[in-house]
């Protein structure tokens, strides 16, 4: 446990320092959502209708923005070699890295959501619903994205490849995340069904992600 908490603390610390990725994601999220009302126009009803989708799209792209560097930086400076050799199973190390990334880059997006909800004419209940679905859904984005990040390690300029690999996997998360939020705002579907599926997607990716990422890192040893 010491090893894993050391890894999590290190990754969060690096992400929060100057040049780290944590703030970039939030700034991107902020930019996308702030610009959207100007693009859509002053129709408040339309804005609140589109609000959850805009927030979800912004959060999805923002959380993928820095994810391709998840293993790349460790690969480039040789840390990944030592992590692979260590007494900590690679699967657990991958899970710890993804958790650190989510804490540093995913959680701030959820914290920013209530502020941005105001700009999209979402009332308190709707904003809370979006924040809750993001809380349940963004771990799935991080843990499936980790698989793409691990595959991209062995390929130079793997960033684009990662987007191609990961975006299809994130579509179900997007569908059920937005569906659950819309259920609260316009109905008539109930909130529970899509939200349960969203939670299930996150739980499945928590299990599969670390194993798939570790397998692809081992396969790519060079």
């Amino acid at each position: 446990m010491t090893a894993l908490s050391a890894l999590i603390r290190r990754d969060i610390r690096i992400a929060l320092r100057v040049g780290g990725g944590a703030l970039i994601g939030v700034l991107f999220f902020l930019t996308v959502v702030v610009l959207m009302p100007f693009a859509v126009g002053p129709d408040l009803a339309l804005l609140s209708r589109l609000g959850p989708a805009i927030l979800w799209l912004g959060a999805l792209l923002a959380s993928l923005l820095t994810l391709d560097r998840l293993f790349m930086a460790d690969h480039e400076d040789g840390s990944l070699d030592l992590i692979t050799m260590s007494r900590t199973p690679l699967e657990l190390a991958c899970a710890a890295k993804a958790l650190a990334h989510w804490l540093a880059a995913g959680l701030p997006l959820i914290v920013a959501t209530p502020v941005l909800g105001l700009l999209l004419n979402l009332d308190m209940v709707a904003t809370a619903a979006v924040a809750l679905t993001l809380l349940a859904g963004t771990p799935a984005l991080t843990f499936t994205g980790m698989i793409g990040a691990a595959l991209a390690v062995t390929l130079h300029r793997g960033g684009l490849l990662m987007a191609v690999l990961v975006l299809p996997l994130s579509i179900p998360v997007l569908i059920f995340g937005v569906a659950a939020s819309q259920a609260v705002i316009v109905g008539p579907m109930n909130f529970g069904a899509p939200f349960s599926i969203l939670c299930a997607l996150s739980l499945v990716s928590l299990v599969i992600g670390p194993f798939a990422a570790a397998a692809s890192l081992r396969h790519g040893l060079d």
Partner: protein
Amino acid sequence: MNGLVPGQIKLSGRGVTCVRGGREVFSGLDFEAVAGEAVAVVGRNGAGKTSLLRLIAGLLIPAGGTIALDGGDAELTLPEQCHYLGHRDALKPALSVAENLAFWADFLGGERRDTAESLATVGLDHATHLPAAFLSAGQRRRLSLARLLTVRRPVWLLDEPTSALDVAGQDMFGGLMREHLGRGGMIIAATHGPLGIDSRELRIGGVA
């Protein structure tokens, strides 16, 4: 106690074959090293010195043959009992010298000694709060060496360990290696220049 009793551990490779990028780097390589012994792997550029170290470290999969450590901790694999000091020094520029070392000490685990003491030994005790981004190549190498001192591992795999070190640094490193061997450790080093300690030569890939 970690197999660090002199004469106990023995590393042996039998018929080791390495293929990289479809090209056979070396094949049928036999080697052996015992506790308290330093082996200098020599050979021309591209002969496979680094590949051999990475094979032992489990970072490459041999295309043939076996590598085994006898007499070590039975519950640990060979890579788990190795320190690997490669060209890339596994340091994070955003973290300070002390944070970098403390992370590896916590993450690698096992028997360890005080990080401040290790930093003093390698001559970095004046720079503990400096971000690693500001270190020179030689200082980065010294910080990597501090990792080897802090976390005890019986087998040291060193790739060009003395590069970037100044004369005083090479002397200091020679002393550290002798101390490690004296405790029953083992050193496999890929090198072009003199290693600075008595060592047995393992030549791969023909005459240099």
